[in-house]
């Protein structure tokens, strides 16, 4: 076991992936609780697809992937929140339209230029090798911002998540906090996407919250449990990916699914006892 761990950490790329991944998993879980409870789960999914489109375009143009995807995904988050509010097109339909369009644009650009290659494949399903020194720096910076804002506005986020009408009535600007959560989600998705894969990153947002809600009954305990579950599943996923040579993103999702079933079972047992 010890030998296994030493060999695991002897690879610099694994250490980098672990740092970035743990931070992203932690932040995604916190934001995920609000998104899931507000029935905005699909926003994470939509934004990651937009991110895929942006990455493909940046690949075709030969520019740095983050510089293109960060503003594009942030803009998409802004538009999705606005569409949801104005209800011309209902929220879930708006997300579906935006995400499939983004994938389509990405694929068209790729096939017209570089063609489907390993890079594109990695963008979709993630690569543990993708994390560079600068990604580590960026993820530390972004997660520091997310954690600080989340802690400062925790009470407001709870009030807006639980009851937007009431929150507005006592003078909380609910729209701002919705936008804040969407923007922070966009940031986290962009940072974590290349490692987890555009098709898999939304699991980091949705799974931990849904899993924790099986068992825990207060908002605070759900938030804390989500963070713990998310970090645990990520680390376990990386270890499994290293041991069995399976893609990291898929391994993390598989662990999340297992833990979800475990929590469902725990809930059954607890209910049976009452």
């Amino acid at each position, binding site marked *: 076991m010890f030998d296994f761990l030493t060999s695991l950490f002897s690879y610099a790329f694994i250490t980098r992936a672990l740092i970035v991944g743990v931070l992203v998993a932690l932040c995604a879980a916190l934001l995920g609780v609000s998104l899931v*409870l507000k*029935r905005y789960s699909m926003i994470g999914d939509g934004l990651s697809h937009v991110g895929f489109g942006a990455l493909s375009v940046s690949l075709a143009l030969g520019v740095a992937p983050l510089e293109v995807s960060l503003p594009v995904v942030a803009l998409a988050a802004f538009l999705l929140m606005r569409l949801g509010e104005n209800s011309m097109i209902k929220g879930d339909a708006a997300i579906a339209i935006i995400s499939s369009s983004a994938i389509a644009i990405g694929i068209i650009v790729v096939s017209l230029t570089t063609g489907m290659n390993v890079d594109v494949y990695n963008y979709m399903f993630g690569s543990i090798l993708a994390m560079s020194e600068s990604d580590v720096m960026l993820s530390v910076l972004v997660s520091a911002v997310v954690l600080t804002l989340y802690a400062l506005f925790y009470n407001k986020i709870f*009030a807006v998540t639980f*009851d937007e009408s009431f929150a*507005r*009535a006592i*003078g909380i600007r609910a729209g701002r906090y919705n936008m804040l959560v969407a923007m922070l989600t966009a940031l986290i998705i962009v940072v974590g996407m290349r490692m987890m894969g555009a098709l898999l990153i939304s699991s980091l947002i949705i799974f931990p919250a849904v899993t924790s809600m099986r068992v825990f009954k207060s908002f*605070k305990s759900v938030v804390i449990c989500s963070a713990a579950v998310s970090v645990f599943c990520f680390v376990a996923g990386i270890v499994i990916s290293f041991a069995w040579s399976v893609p990291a993103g898929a391994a993390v999702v598989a662990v999340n699914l297992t833990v979800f079933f475990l929590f469902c079972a725990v809930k059954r047992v607890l209910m049976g006892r009452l």
Partner: protein
Amino acid sequence: MALISCENVTMKYDGQTAVDNVSFRVEPGDYLCIVGENGSGKSTLVKGLLGLLKPVSGKIVFDGVESSEIGYLPQQTMAQKDFPASVYEVVLSGCRSRMFYGKEAKRRALMNMERLDIGSLKNKCYRELSGGQQQRVLLARALCATEKLLLLDEPAAGLDPVITAELYALIAELNESGITIIMVSHDIQNAVRYGSRILHMAMHGAFFGTTGDYLKSEEGRRMTGGIEDV
């Protein structure tokens, strides 16, 4: 001196006139029931009172209370039905704060829970409570936001008759303790039974007056089917 005076208020919702030239006053200690058919502009007027929507003409004047100092009891949403939150967390969220809740806010939350007899439910999960208990929790939260004025939007929606009667008795008690009540309701029987004043919203022209006058009016007779001695 009226807490709220609405003078010739006209409001639009989605480009349509929803509230048309409505005037009424809310005096301290009043129990005002806002009744009217679906689409008569009740919800839009509520938004106006809460300061979330501006009237296109006329004015809503507050005196001695701010629009953000109204204790609001909104209708429950689907999302709340399986929301993991403790009763204490929900009640506390009614307190206004910059960022974090201080001692005073926590004391207020506990006091209002005792007041509504839900102190023992403090650590219970909101989604596991009965409909009546959930309304008490939301009322306690509303009381955290106000000292003076509660605005209740269909408080008895979806409750069984026994619990409904208990809830109305509770609201009447709060009213007697000096809190002004504005209640939007479909339940005309209880509106005329408990309300001291009635605002009947209609597409053209609203009725506003005491409950006694309302029962004698044309609108009142039509809505109540002619019962006068409630």
